[in-house]
């Protein structure tokens, strides 16, 4: 039961990654691409992490997984911000 839940969660997460990647390739400008990617990073990774936590019995490893997820969230937030800022300034420069 728990196994199948875990597999389901991982697949759900992968679905977000897939749509995020499609968004990255298909969307027209930097900002909407960033939006798509951030969704994939945050929610997709959350579900994948959840799935692995369900499979992994050791509490220590569970904590590590959550920390990894939190770190990636923080990094992706900051880097999205930097990319967006750069893109915004770049557009201004072109004007």
């Amino acid at each position, binding site marked *: 039961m728990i196994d199948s839940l875990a597999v389901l969660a991982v697949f759900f997460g992968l679905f977000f990654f897939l749509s995020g990647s499609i968004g990255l390739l298909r969307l027209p400008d930097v900002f909407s691409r960033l939006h798509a990617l951030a969704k994939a990073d945050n929610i997709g990774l959350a579900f994948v992490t959840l799935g692995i936590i369900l499979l992994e019995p050791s509490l220590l490893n569970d904590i590590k997984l959550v920390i990894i997820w939190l770190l990636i969230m*923080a*990094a992706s*937030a*900051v880097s999205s*911000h*930097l990319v967006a*800022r750069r893109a915004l300034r770049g557009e201004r420069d072109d004007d």
Partner: protein
Amino acid sequence: MIEILWFLVDSMLVLLLLALAWTTCSSRDVMRAVTLFIAMGLLLAIIWARLKAPDLALAEAIIGAGVSGALLLSAISDYPSTAITSHRSPLMHGIINTFTLALTILMSWAVWHGLNMSDGVRLSEQVSSQIPVSGVSNPVTAVLLNFRAYDTLLELAVVLTAVLAVLILNDKRADSAASSPLLRGMTRWLVPLLVVTSGYLLWVGAHAPGGAFQAGAMLAAAMILLQLAYPSIHRGFNLYLLRVLLVAGIFTFVLVGLWMMSANDDFLAYTPAWAGTLILIIETAATISIAAALTLAYIGGRPTGWETGDHVITGKEDAG
């Protein structure tokens, strides 16, 4: 069934890797090529993990993709043009293509032959039989800092030489504009975390994946992050200390080697009872040197006052 699944995963990784390598090498824009190269580094890290080389996966993620990515990205701004064109004539193009294709076939044939003729054991049994007396239980660390420590010593010399060249050639890059407050905010709590992680990697290298190179590169990553968030932070560095730290790792290594030669006849022949401690001492010193070296390499040249650092006193004497 499980074999087929693995084979599918492996083929996907391999195809993705080759595709990334190809696009990196045939991209027409430098920025794009560098980005793809960094992505290739991350993919390689995954492949190292898949091939049961976790030490390498760590090193590749931090050094291969991280530090060299940072070096390359900051170098792009040094060049006026970012377009990539090949100046080779179509005939030369054809010759190069034929040559590399022929070489690929020859090498593939040799690899196939080699894997079939080998016993598959190679040096792994010799290593595992000597692990108990090497002073550490992580076999990669045992090879790096005990069995083949001399290679590692010369490798540190290579790093030092490269950094000396960087310091000789250029002044450091002009400070960039003030950074985003969000970045500064994150840096403030990420840098201590990175420093702690680096210490952990150094310590854990004795019995699990990790070691001096990963730890040193992680420390350097922390410094690079600081530099990005606070562009003028290097002004606070004590340059003389930095110079000493740069050399300290290798110096310790050589001295330990010579000391052990006086005790046990052979250079770097550790007394087994002390081996663990000696390795940890060498690794700690090496971590600091590598961090100093990679940070200086990232800065891209000598900080103001680097060469006059120890002449400052002389200058004052002259003036007085």
